[in-house]
C-alpha cells in the first residue's frame, strides 16, 4: 500500500504497476468473478425483458433524482410521523459529529455495524474508535477487512481478493482459531464471534439501499442476516444514507430489488430485503427505541448540478460495472484509492473529491463500454469517463498535449504535406531505438511497457496504389483471354 502523502495519481500509478503483475491476486479475483458471471447470466436469462426492465428502473431513478427535494421532504415527513429522526449532513464531519454526539448522549459503549459504504466514505470507524467506542463490522467480508486493517476491495464483495488460506491465517492470528481451508468453517468462526457483538451492542449502524418516500422507510438489502440483527437488537439504530438513494414509492422496489440482486450477485432476490419505517411501534415485540436516519450530501449536490452526468446518481451500487471491467480485473480495487471503486467510482469521485486530483481515474479505461452495457439502471458510464476527461482538459489545459494535437490536425488537413512527412517515418523508426526508453524518448510512456511499432517502408497509400494497379492488370489480362 502506498503512503498517504502521495498524490492520488502517483499512488494509482504505483499500485497499478504492482498489482497488474501480481498474478496470484489476479487469479483470485478472476475466479471469484467467474462464479459471479455464471450466476448472473443464469438469472438474467430468466427475465422476460431485461432491457425494458432496465428502462423502467432508469425512469424511476430519473424521476426520484430530478425531484430530489420533493421526495426527500416527503420521506422526512412520513418517517418523522412514525417516530424517526432525520438529520441532514452537508459533509463527513457533520455526519460523524452527529453520530458521536448521539452515542455520547445515550451512554453507548459498543456499536455493531452492518455494511455501509457511506461509513467508509465519512471515515466513521476511525472516528468512533478514537472516541473510545468498540465498533464491529458484522458483514463477513467487512469483518475480514476490518481484522486485516484494510479498506474493502470491492463495494459489494469486500474481500473477494483473498484466498481462503489467507483468511484462515488472519483468523488464526487475530482470533486464535485453528487453521482450516473450509469456507464453511471459516464462516462459522465469524458467526460465533459476531453473535456476541449483536447482543452486547447498544447501537446498530447501517447503510441503506433505498429511501422510500411515500411510506417513509429505508430498505436494506443483504444476504447474511447481519443487518437484520444489527437493526433489530440494539436499542438505537442509525442509518447513514446518501441523499440520492431515494425512490418515490414502495412499489418501485418490486422492480428494483430483483434487478439489484440479478446485477449484483446473480440472485433472483438477495437473502434479506428489509424495509424499516421508524423505531419499534406501539404494540410491537422488539426493535430499537430510537431510529435516526442521517442523510448525507457530501458533494452529491455537486454532481446533481451537472445535468449531463446527473444520472450517475441513479446508481444502485450493485457493483456489476466493477465485475465486468477489464481495468478492475487487472489493477484490483485498492488501486483506485477511492471509497467507490471501478467504473462508477471513476465517474463520481472527481465530482466528490476534486476533478484535477482524480481525473486520472477517467483515463484508466479502455472505453469498451462493458460497464454501460451491464448497468441495471442504464447509466452512461463510459461516456461519463470521456466527459470527465473533456472537463478536466477544459478546466486545466495541458499546453504540450494540445500543441501535439494541433500539429496533428494541421498535418491531417494537408494531404500533400502529410504524404511528404510520412516519408520520414521509416527514418524515425530507424533512429528511435537510439533513444528508446531514455529521457529523450517522446513516447516513453508507451515504450516503458510496450514495443513501439516500426513504420513500414512503403506507406499504405503507396501499397494500395500498387495493389490496385496489379488488380487492373490482372483484369485486363483475363478480359483479353476471353
Amino acid at each position: 500500500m502506498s503512503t498517504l502523502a502521495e498524490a492520488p495519481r502517483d499512488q494509482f500509478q504505483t499500485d497499478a504497476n504492482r498489482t497488474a503483475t501480481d498474478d496470484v491476486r489476479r487469479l483470485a479475483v478472476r475466479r471469484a468473478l467467474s462464479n459471479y458471471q455464471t450466476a448472473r447470466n443464469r438469472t438474467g436469462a430468466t427475465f422476460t425483458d431485461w432491457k425494458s426492465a432496465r428502462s423502467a428502473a432508469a425512469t424511476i431513478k430519473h424521476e426520484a433524482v430530478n425531484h430530489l427535494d420533493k421526495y426527500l421532504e416527503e420521506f422526512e415527513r412520513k418517517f418523522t410521523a412514525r417516530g424517526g429522526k432525520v438529520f441532514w449532513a452537508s459533509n463527513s464531519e457533520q455526519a460523524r459529529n452527529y453520530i458521536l454526539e448521539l452515542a455520547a448522549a445515550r451512554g453507548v459503549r459498543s456499536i455493531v455495524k452492518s455494511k455501509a459504504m457511506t461509513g467508509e466514505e465519512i471515515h466513521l470507524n476511525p472516528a468512533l474508535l478514537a472516541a473510545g467506542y468498540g465498533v464491529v463490522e458484522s458483514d463477513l467480508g467487512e469483518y475480514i477487512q476490518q481484522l486485516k486493517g484494510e479498506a474493502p476491495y470491492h463495494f459489494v464483495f469486500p474481500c473477494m481478493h483473498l484466498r481462503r488460506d489467507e483468511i484462515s491465517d488472519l483468523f488464526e492470528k487475530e482470533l486464535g482459531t485453528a487453521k482450516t481451508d473450509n469456507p464453511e468453517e471459516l464462516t462459522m468462526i465469524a458467526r460465533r464471534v459476531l453473535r456476541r457483538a449483536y447482543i452486547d451492542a447498544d447501537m446498530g449502524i447501517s447503510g441503506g439501499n433505498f429511501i422510500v418516500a411515500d411510506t417513509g422507510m429505508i430498505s436494506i438489502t443483504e444476504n447474511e442476516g447481519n443487518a437484520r440483527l444489527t437493526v433489530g437488537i440494539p436499542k438505537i439504530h442509525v442509518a447513514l444514507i446518501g441523499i440520492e438513494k431515494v425512490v418515490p414509492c414502495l412499489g418501485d422496489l418490486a422492480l428494483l430489488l430483483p434487478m439489484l440482486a440479478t446485477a449484483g450477485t446473480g440472485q433472483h432476490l438477495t437473502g434479506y430485503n428489509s424495509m424499516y419505517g421508524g423505531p419499534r411501534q406501539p404494540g410491537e415485540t422488539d426493535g430499537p427505541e430510537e431510529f435516526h436516519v442521517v442523510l448525507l450530501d457530501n458533494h452529491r449536490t455537486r454532481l446533481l448540478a451537472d445535468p449531463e452526468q446527473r444520472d450517475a446518481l441513479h446508481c444502485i451500487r450493485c457493483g456489476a460495472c466493477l465485475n465486468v471491467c477489464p481495468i478492475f480485473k487487472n489493477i484490483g480495487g485498492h488501486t483506485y484509492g477511492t471509497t467507490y471503486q471501478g467504473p462508477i467510482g471513476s465517474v463520481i469521485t472527481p465530482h466528490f473529491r476534486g476533478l484535477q486530483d482524480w481525473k486520472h481515474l477517467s483515463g484508466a479505461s479502455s472505453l469498451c463500454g462493458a460497464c454501460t452495457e451491464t448497468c441495471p439502471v442504464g447509466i452512461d458510464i463510459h461516456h461519463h469517463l470521456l466527459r470527465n476527461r473533456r472537463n478536466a482538459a477544459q478546466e486545466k489545459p495541458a499546453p504540450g498535449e494540445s500543441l501535439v494535437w494541433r500539429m496533428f490536425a494541421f498535418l491531417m488537413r494537408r494531404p500533400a504535406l502529410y504524404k511528404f512527412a510520412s516519408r520520414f517515418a521509416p527514418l524515425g523508426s530507424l533512429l528511435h531505438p537510439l533513444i528508446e526508453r531514455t529521457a529523450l524518448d517522446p513516447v516513453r510512456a508507451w515504450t516503458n511497457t510496450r514495443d513501439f511499432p516500426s513504420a513500414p517502408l512503403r506507406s499504405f497509400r503507396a501499397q494500395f496504389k500498387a495493389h490496385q494497379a496489379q488488380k487492373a492488370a490482372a483484369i485486363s489480362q483475363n478480359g483479353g483471354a476471353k
Partner: protein
Amino acid sequence: MNSQNGDREAILGRVREALRVPAPLKHPAERSAGGEPTTAHFREWLPPVGPSLDEKFALFAKLSETLRSELIVCADLAQAAAEIASLSSAESWKTIALHRGGLLDKLAPLLPNNLAQLCVDGGYDKNALEACDAGITECELLVAQTGSVCVTSDNSGGRVLSVLPPHHIVIARQSQLVTDLTEAYESLAAKYRAHYPSMISFITGPSRTGDIERILVLGAHGPKRLTILLLP
C-alpha cells in the same frame, strides 16, 4: 449546523439550485414510473410466473429447492406439529421460540412436551432467545416469483425471532402465496394502509454468504436452515 435537523435548509437549497437545469431522460420507459399508483406492468419484464395457483406453487417449490429452503406440504396442523417434532428429535432441540398468532396458538399445544417454548410477545431476554434451537413464526405472504417469505414485525413475532435462532420454521397457508413483489406490496398496502409495521422483510432462503471466494455458505449470521410448512 445550528438547527436540530442539521443542514436541512442548506442541502435542500443546493438541491433546488442544482435541479434548475433539467436532465434528459435517456431511457424512456414504455410507461412512466414514479408516482404511478400501480406497478403491475413490472410483471411484463420480470421472470414469468404463470397465473394459476398450481403454476405459482410449482415455481415457489422449484425456487425453494435452489435456495435450499425446505418446503414441506402439510395436510393439517397435526402433520405440521409432527414435522416439527421430527426436526426436533433429529437436531435434538431443547427450546424453541415462537410468538402468539392465529396459527401458532393452535399449533403450540400440539408440539412435543419435552420441547420448552419461549414466547417472545411482551418482551424476551435476548440471551435466552439466542440460546433457542429454532424459531417458529407465521408470515405475511409467500412470493412465487422469488421464492421468498415475507415477514413483518407485526405478524411474525417482531424483528429478531425470524433471524436469531439457527433454524427458522415458517408456518403458512397456501392462500398466502402471491405472484410477485408487486402483488406482495399491494397486499401489504391493503392490509396496513398508512400503518405499516416498523419492519417488512422478504426472506429468500436461509442466511447465506459468498464472501469467501464467492463460494456459497449457508448460515452466515441468520438461520442455517429455513423450513416452510405449508398448510392448505
